[in-house]
């Protein structure tokens, strides 16, 4: 049995934040779930997906976040408790249905989990999704700890049913990927069937209906404000005249700083865990008890702006600061020492900064950037495209997309020139090809292609753009930890009853006239095929098929077949300088191959001008 299904209220477990959130959903009786994977949210979905295979919980990996939210809306409107999980930028994709579902509302509790990523550990931006609360009018809840993250999920479901609208649970990386001791609660029985009661004047958002629904949403915000005022997730601690208003993980740093600065009797903390709508009365009365206030929140001055507006309404003139000059930054994540120092300075308390050792005389340590894995098929594809372009004498540019393959932007491959969001490779290629004289070759992964590359390709065909799109089909959603996508053979997951979409047939059906499938480990054939495709005037698509090596390893499909550099090596170093596979290392001046990392893709053996790279063990 999955450990998160344990029926033993009161038991203590060490859980990752994302496991705690999945457990919270189970305790809330969630019966329907959808997701598109994205760090730092991925393990929530992974655990729910695993549990769906043992229970009557329905959980699906949807094509993208917009689809996930719409699929979920059908279940929630029919009265079933539903959760939809995504990373912060995923909510941009799902924003369209979210904004109007906020008008329509739901019958069964509906929790939308969005995971922000301050510092961008694995994201393209660090947008602050609390603003989606303001934009949509929906409630926002924000936990400060792993235990609280679990507790907030059932609360969010109840709140959603009380208000009849979706509730946004917003986390940050340091909640999702922190681990703590969690006390299990009761599991509410799942109700998996609902019913849809027809009511077109509520559910069909034509203008006349929406005008009425918007008014209802505003009334709901009033109701939500009243709940926020008395919510236990907005609480005060301490009774001093120095006020600190904080949220999320910042609360932890503030709590530790107050203790370490020894100012427990001087400070009052207002922790805001229900941050949209803001608890207006509570904040106003908090401000009246303070002589000076600091707002501690990662990201944008979301609370600070509200707090200042409340102070203005009350005619309060006490100093309120947060993101002011030399106080706290809008950039990146906070840390405990930073908040301690900021509070010491702001409240004029003597404090000693952390005595960090002097590292000025430590020699520069070589960087260890993440890299495409040893034997990764993307490396082979990039190399083949590069060679084809060189041999054709083309001046090419490479719009790329979001996935492992984005790592190919690093030298020596240097095969990504423009990346902004999921699906942008193909659509931005359309624009580049129109206004530049470059040969435009876009790269997109299989999962990303299904997510939002298809519509861009339709545009390219319809408007007859001149570009080549390389679809890097490694048969899995790799970057986020090997999740299914519509092109995946679900038999690999020991699951049946799924459909499977052929990218080749799909691309042909979209009207692409020049479609080639290559096997990137076969370099020579691939290079020849790519040369044909890039010469084609109009839209050409290359589908590069080879299973992700990490995934193949996990399925035990890889036969160990390491290669070695033999005595024939004349140290051209083409292997090292052009492929840069991490299985290579230098032994003195000679290139060697680590037999443990080498997966035997044999791409380097084809690159070596001396044919010096050979199987470690001669094949029988």
């Amino acid at each position, binding site marked *: 049995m999955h450990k998160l299904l344990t029926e033993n209220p009161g038991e203590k477990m*060490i859980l990752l934040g994302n496991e705690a959130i999945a457990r919270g959903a189970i305790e809330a009786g969630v019966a329907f779930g959808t997701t598109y994977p994205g760090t730092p949210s991925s393990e929530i979905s992974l655990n729910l997906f695993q549990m769906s295979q043992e229970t009557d919980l329905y959980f699906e990996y949807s094509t993208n976040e917009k689809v996930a939210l719409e699929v979920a809306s059908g279940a929630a409107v029919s009265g079933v408790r539903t959760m939809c999980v995504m990373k912060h930028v995923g909510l941009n994709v799902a924003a369209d249905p979210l904004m109007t579902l906020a008008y329509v509302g739901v019958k069964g509790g509906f929790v939308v989990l969005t995971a922000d990523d301050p510092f961008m550990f694995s994201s393209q931006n660090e947008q602050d999704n609390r603003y989606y609360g303001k934009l949509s009018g929906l409630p926002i809840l924000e936990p400060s*700890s792993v235990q609280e993250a679990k507790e907030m999920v059932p609360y969010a479901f109840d709140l959603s049913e009380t208000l009849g609208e979706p509730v946004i649970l917003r986390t940050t990386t340091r909640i999702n990927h*922190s*681990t703590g001791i969690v006390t299990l609660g009761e599991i509410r029985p799942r109700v998996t069937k609902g019913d849809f009661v027809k009511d077109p004047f509520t559910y069909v958002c034509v203008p006349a209906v929406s005008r009425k629904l918007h008014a209802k949403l505003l009334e709901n915000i009033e109701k939500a404000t009243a709940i926020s005022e008395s919510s236990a997730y907005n609480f005060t601690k301490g009774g001093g005249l120095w006020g600190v208003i904080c949220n999320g993980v910042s609360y932890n740093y503030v709590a*530790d700083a107050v203790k370490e600065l020894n100012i427990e009797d001087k400070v009052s903390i207002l922790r805001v865990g229900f941050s949209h709508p803001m608890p207006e009365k509570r904040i106003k009365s908090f401000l009246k008890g303070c002589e000076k206030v600091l707002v501690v929140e990662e990201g944008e001055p979301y609370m600070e702006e509200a707090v200042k507006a409340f102070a203005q309404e009350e005619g309060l003139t006490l100093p309120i600061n947060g993101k002011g000059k030399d106080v706290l930054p809008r950039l990146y994540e906070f840390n405990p020492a930073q908040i301690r120092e900021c509070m010491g300075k702001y409240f004029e308390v003597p404090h000693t900064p952390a005595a*960090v050792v002097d590292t000025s005389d430590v*020699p520069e340590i070589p960087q260890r950037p993440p890299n495409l894995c040893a034997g990764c098929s993307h490396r082979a594809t990039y190399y083949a495209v590069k060679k084809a372009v060189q041999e054709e004498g083309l001046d090419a540019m490479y719009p790329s997309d979001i996935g492992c393959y984005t790592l190919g932007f690093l030298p020596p491959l240097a095969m990504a020139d423009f990346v902004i969001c999921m699906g942008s490779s193909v659509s931005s290629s359309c624009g580049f090809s129109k206004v530049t004289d470059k040969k435009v070759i876009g790269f997109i992964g299989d999962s990303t292609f299904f997510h939002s590359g298809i519509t861009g390709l339709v545009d390219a065909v319809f408007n007859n753009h001149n570009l080549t799109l390389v679809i890097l089909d490694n048969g899995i959603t790799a970057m986020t930890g090997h999740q299914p996508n519509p092109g995946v053979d679900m038999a690999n997951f020991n699951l049946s009853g799924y459909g499977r979409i052929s990218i080749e047939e799909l691309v042909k059906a979209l009207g692409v006239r020049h479609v080639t499938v290559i096997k990137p480990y076969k370099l020579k054939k691939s290079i020849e095929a790519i040369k044909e495709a890039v010469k084609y005037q109009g839209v050409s698509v290359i589908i590069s098929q080879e299973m992700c090596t990490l995934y193949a390893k996990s399925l035990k499909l890889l036969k160990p077949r390491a290669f070695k550099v033999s005595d024939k090596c004349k140290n051209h170093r083409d292997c*090292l300088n052009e492929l840069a596979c991490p299985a290579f290392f230098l032994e003195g001046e000679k290139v060697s191959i680590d037999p443990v990392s080498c997966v035997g893709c044999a791409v380097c053996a084809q690159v070596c001008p001396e044919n010096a790279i050979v199987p470690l063990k001669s094949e029988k």
Partner: protein
Amino acid sequence: MDTKRLIIVAVGGQGNLLASRVLGEAALLANVPVRMSEIHGMAQRGGVVESAIVFGDAESTIISDGEADVLVGFEPSETLRALNKCNGKTVVITNLAPAPPFTVAIGKGVYPDLNQAQELIQAKTSKLIAFDATARAKEAGNVLSLNMALVGALTQTGILPVSEGNVKEIIRTKTKHAFVDTNIKAFELGFSAAVDA
């Protein structure tokens, strides 16, 4: 209860997350409050994995520069890179077996000299325990047990509020059954390496 802050740095695949998990479970067993934080995602692609573990009464799950009581490095150049987490009182435990980053192979950096690295760490912190944990793991029967060798050395210092018995019990009950014997052996070899250091 006193707060103890531990940073573990490693290269993806060295078993840092399991080591953290074992220490966390051992704390739970000993009824010691514990909070941890780790960065996932790109690590499987050969990057650096850093875990922070805070034992005792604290709310934060991350550790600021200069605030680690103990730094454990599974790879010597990564230990050196994480020196900014230390202060003059920090105890540092490091594996001495290098796993040079790929940038060295393509001539984009020079791997630090191990003797110089140890001298630098020794001079700047209160104590350095350095040994070849990879060799101990191999001796125990599996190179992948190097994490347990380092957990053994860490447990020997007695800095953390978890006992040898607790940690061993967790290794026995929470690590993969097939690896328990090698893990315990590696733990013990690491433990005695720290005695000798």
